[in-house]
């Protein structure tokens, strides 16, 4: 009974969203905008989580005035403040480059949305991942697009006509070049085991309990470290170290220009955590016996599992930020090239052997 | 190392350069002495090399306009023993007072001598960098800590206009008594 109703629902959905309907693309566009709004809200949630969790670590109370006892609407107040600030454009900046940099950073973070599945519905034994599209090279696309943001930071640093920003930009490039390699190698090792670049296949290749984090622990650790370096958070945030370089690449930005770049960093954090959950922590998989219990709407549980894992990963990232001091840039590059890169090669060999076993 | 040993050895080594040497009766029992201006580097090197006075605590200057002299005071201490020596050198208060620098003896005399120069005007011969340290660049040459600094204590800052100009500031912002508002509107 339930399954027939689900079938009718799914056919109705195809009718609304599919291509036979002349309004299909428009509907999809609207839903896409809503998805983007959802991502913004989740980035706001990420900022709120960071502030509250940081205040717990530091034994103080975080935001607790705006929006009730837990300060849930604090970010809306901050966004309004950023909108109403004066937009200062210094005289000697390189105009188009300086103005386009935050837009580029924001855009590259948003480009990652189209390929990430945010959970799945499981009905009738088939999985319907909640992704905008599924294409065969999705993981490669995600990694490539997340690296475009670095060009934005360099544009900000160079176009600002400011010595501090230029130093920050150079440090950024040094950091990214080192850690993108390790990141890419760990992703390649996961792909070798799975045999496909499609992220949905990677999730499905992990069983309900045997995740890639347990099977390839070295790869998981390297991926975690490279991801934190990729997102530009402490202990790797030399590009915006307030101590030496007043605000790094963001020195000459004020108001919503700064807000865009700041927000882009948090969206990157959100989406990076999603990727970590999907690739290494089993995505939305749940133990199979739960499906056999015919609880109504059990098919929606994988989304909840995905969100719970995502929140845990983000909390871990925030914890690392507030518990460690910052590393110097030469130590950053030496860790990236002398430690993580050889270990990633070792992990690749291990993954190759594992891939042979997996395919039996 | 005792205060009396230091005193005796100073008196015996420099009988002509050191005068009025005595030890303070109260702790920290400073050994005070007046030194001839030209022999200051010799006395200081002797103190550092033979009597282990390897820390210069500070260099000060006091202005005595009635006696037309400056007094440059050196406070010398040590890391190895607990005797403090206070040397006073008199510099004549004329057009360009000067004294030898003790940088060859103690490296950290650099900033102390710069400060004495910018506040009192005593030039230190042989100092590598005689510029302002704490004052602003355009206050060089004013010697603020002298007793006859211009119109002290009524005006201690340099005004941007001279005496024969009209006071531009008072024209733009005239002083007038503003009375409090007669009615106050309190929020009800």
């Amino acid at each position, binding site marked *: 009974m339930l399954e027939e109703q689900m079938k009718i629902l799914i056919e109705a959905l195809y009718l609304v969203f599919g291509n036979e309907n002349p309004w299909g693309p428009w509907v999809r566009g609207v839903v896409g905008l809503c998805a983007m709004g959802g991502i913004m809200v989740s980035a706001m949630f990420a900022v709120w989580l960071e502030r509250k969790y940081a205040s717990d670590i530091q034994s103080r109370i975080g935001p607790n005035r705006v929006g009730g006892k837990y300060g849930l609407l604090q970010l809306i107040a901050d966004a309004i403040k950023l909108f109403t600030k004066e937009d200062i454009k210094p005289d000697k900046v390189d105009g188009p480059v300086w103005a386009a940099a935050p837009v580029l950073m924001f855009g590259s973070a948003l480009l990652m949305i189209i390929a990430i599945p945010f959970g799945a519905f499981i009905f009738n034994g088939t999985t319907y991942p909640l992704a905008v599209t599924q294409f065969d090279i999705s993981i490669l696309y995600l990694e490539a697009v997340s690296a475009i943001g670095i060009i934005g930071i360099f544009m900000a640093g160079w176009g600002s006509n400011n010595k501090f920003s230029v130093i920050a930009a150079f440090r950024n490039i040094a950091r990214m070049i080192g850690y993108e390699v390790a990141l890419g190698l760990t992703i390649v090792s996961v792909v070798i085991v799975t045999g496909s670049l499609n992220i949905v296949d990677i999730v499905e290749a992990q069983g309900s309990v045997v995740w890639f984090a347990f099977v390839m622990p070295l790869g998981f650790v390297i991926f975690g470290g490279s991801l934190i370096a990729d997102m530009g958070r402490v202990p790797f945030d*030399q590009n915006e170290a307030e101590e030496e370089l007043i605000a790094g690449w963001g020195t000459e930005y004020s108001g919503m220009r700064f807000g865009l770049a700041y927000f882009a960093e948090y969206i990157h954090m959100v989406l990076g955590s999603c990727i970590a959950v999907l690739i290494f922590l089993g995505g939305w998989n749940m133990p199979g016996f739960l499906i056999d219990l015919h609880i109504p709407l059990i098919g929606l549980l994988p989304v909840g599992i995905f969100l719970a894992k995502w929140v845990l990963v983000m909390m871990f990232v925030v914890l690392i930020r507030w518990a460690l*001091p910052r590393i110097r840039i030469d130590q950053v590059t030496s860790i990236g090239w002398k430690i993580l890169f050889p270990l990633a090669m070792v992990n690749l060999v291990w993954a190759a052997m594992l891939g042979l076993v997996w395919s039996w | 190392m005792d205060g009396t040993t230091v005193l005796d050895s100073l008196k015996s080594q420099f009988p002509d350069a050191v005068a009025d040497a005595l030890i303070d009766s*109260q702790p920290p029992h400073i050994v005070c002495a007046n030194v001839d201006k030209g022999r200051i580097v010799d006395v200081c090197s002797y103190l550092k090399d033979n009597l282990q006075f390897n*820390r210069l605590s*500070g260099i*000060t200057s006091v202005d005595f306009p009635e006696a037309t002299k400056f007094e440059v005071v050196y406070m010398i201490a040590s*890391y190895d023993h607990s005797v403090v020596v206070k040397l006073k050198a008199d510099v004549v208060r004329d057009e360009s007072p000067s004294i030898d620098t003790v940088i060859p003896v*103690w490296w950290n005399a650099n900033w102390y001598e710069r400060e004495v120069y910018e506040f009192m005007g005593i030039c230190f011969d042989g100092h590598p960098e005689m510029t*302002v340290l*704490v004052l602003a660049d355009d206050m060089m040459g004013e010697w603020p800590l002298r007793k006859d600094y211009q119109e002290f204590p009524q005006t201690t800052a340099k005004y941007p206009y001279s005496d024969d100009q009209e006071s531009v500031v008072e024209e733009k912002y005239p002083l007038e008594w503003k009375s409090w508002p007669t009615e106050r509107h309190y929020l009800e």
Partner: protein
Amino acid sequence: MVNKHDVKKRMRQLAAEYIHEPQQEAYKLDDTEMMLHIGPQNPIQPGPFLIDLKISGETVRDSKLYMGYGHKGIEKILESMTYIQGLPVTDRICYLSSLSNNEAYVSSVERLLDIEPPERSQYIRVIMQELSRIQSHLLGTGEYATDLGFVTMFLFMIREREYVLGLIEDITGARITHCFPRFGGVRQDLPDGWREKAIDVLSMIHEKCEMYKELFSSDRTYKMRTVGIGTLTKEDVMKAGLTGPSLRATGIDYDVRKVYPTLVYPDIDFKVQTAENGDIFDRVMVRVNEIQESCWIIEQALDQIKPGPLFPDELPYGRRTPSMRVPPGDAYVPIEDPRGEMAMYIVSDGTDKPYRVKIRGPAFALMQGLPPMLENVYIADVPAIAASMDSCNSEVDR
């Protein structure tokens, strides 16, 4: 009276001789070099000063330090105020260690007046000195931790500092700029119930210092940033004339409280904390150890203190001393500031105002010794080194 026109002529002469910066030797840049100004207004500085760094890539080749952005003319001000009026001014020389500044001033004037405070006042002064040392070290180490990116440590230390400031406020009535000692005694006695509260707070701080030491020693990232960086050898530190924790971190155990003991320090048993290497890690460790040592000193003082008068019986000028006349002479009494040796050289000519007050602060030598330490370090090490020296800009500028 100095002729104004002569002065202006001299000034023009000097201006003509002054070599402007881009032509000075130190400012000539190669193709690979860049001049970076960590400038007067920087969010992380404790006070305004300017460091010009000549960098090549990420290494600092040369540095030049410009002070004077906070000059207030305190020495000149003190010449036009009576002795008791000058006491709040000395608070503001360095607002973090204001009790030590007061103590130096009051000790020197007491030396000129030839009076000695009774025993209870001396114990109270020792207790206040050590409390001031605790709170200054907590804040100094916290600020240094933010310069490394370790914001959590700063917030932990500030939390402990609030308790200590509460203790100080119970006695003096203020959190900073206390103006507490008087000539011959102290302003107020310890209130009732303060002793038990102090013992609780001190035992808590003792525990927390153990936690800080363990945190600092076991954190690998922190040690990568601090061990072996900004090293001062014994010869360097004696050449620069430093005192205080920066000196003791190299292994020389020179503490003004032991070398020139004043007040009741000879009756109190404490150890001078030293370390071996003289790098940033050791300087911070010496400070945290000193906090624990100060807790121990205060507990001993609270055990040994006895009830008694706060001022001597035959005070020549009474407790209200608006226009007391001080016999002519000069006095110099060094005491141990949280940063080093602090002393005031006061010259008096028999009137009710001092003739000359020279403030010998410890931060002067720390700032002077900073540019030689910044050769061939990375830019990221500059704030770490500068903050680990714990110098105070307002004390250098006065």
